[in-house]
């Protein structure tokens, strides 16, 4: 299946910078991220569309999405 061969993006989260505001979680259009304790984690990488909105709205330079 094409899906199995699909190249997944890489989401890098800097836990030292993340302050847990949850803006990226709340506004991700495809619900990829979730809060785990004080920081954000990836819940469903497969759903990521690489739109970059999480990075653009992150106030803390804490999340980046690589192709």
């Amino acid at each position, binding site marked *: 299946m094409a899906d199995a061969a699909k190249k997944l993006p890489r989401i890098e989260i800097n836990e030292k910078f993340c302050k847990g505001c949850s*803006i990226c979680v709340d506004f991700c259009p495809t619900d990829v991220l979730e809060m785990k304790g004080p920081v954000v984690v990836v819940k469903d990488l497969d759903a990521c569309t690489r739109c970059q*909105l999480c990075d653009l709205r992150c106030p803390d*330079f804490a999340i980046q999405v690589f192709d």
Partner: protein
Amino acid sequence: MTAEAAKKQKLSVPFDYSKYLRGGKLPHIWCPGCGHGIILKALLRAIDKIGLTNDEICMVSGIGCSSRTPGYVDFNTMHTLHGRALSYATGIKMANPDLNLIVTTGDGDALAIGGNHFIHTCRRNIDMTILVYSNSIYGMTGGQFSPTTPEGSKTSTSPYGAMEPNFDCCELAKASGATFVARATSYHVAELERTIKAAIEHKGTSVVEILDQCPIYFGRQNKYKSASHMMEMIEKDGTVSVKQVDKLPPEKLEGKLLRGILHQVEGEEYCDKYAKIIEKAQD
């Protein structure tokens, strides 16, 4: 794949902020969910799109959480007195007309203690970009009301609701003579970047009022659940793009602030005018 090739294929390449940042300064001091960091990032992307080098920029600020911005960037920077950033910036610009002046200021810094400097800077049409981080409150000092606090909002100094009508920063800038006036939000990030870029590229005084959120003081005191809740209610639902105004019925515009470039005209720039005066005097 190279960044160039990826861009062509519209694949994502995260923006590299590090070339514009002073090493070792992050994480910044702003609270969780504060919009100031979102504005800083959009500003750096705008600067990159224009292609300015670090040395071609001078960033000046007053005092406040928003005024901490210059501390993080590797440009020529100056952190000055509360409300007085524009006076310092004016002096720097007149002595170095080739520098690109960017002033980062809070609504309190720009419009309360600095209100007089604000209107007179706009009146002169000196070439600089004034970014007003407008969070409707004095963040740094504990959430007192500011000239942009909407009437009725609770703050530390208005526990029963602010009783003064608030300033419209953009109307004030326009009436005072600024030749570029725009409003943006930290929610509409791509638009924010484009607006800042246009403001920097404009020759003359450019004012961008950027609605952002102080979840710690304004948010908590006015019963917002989170930073995202504020962005949703105040920035997304509370504004309408100038491009949509004509398409919307009047009831959909009620109580909304306009977003986008609200005013742009050509006008003779102050340093250019001053150069002519010097020429005349030397004749």
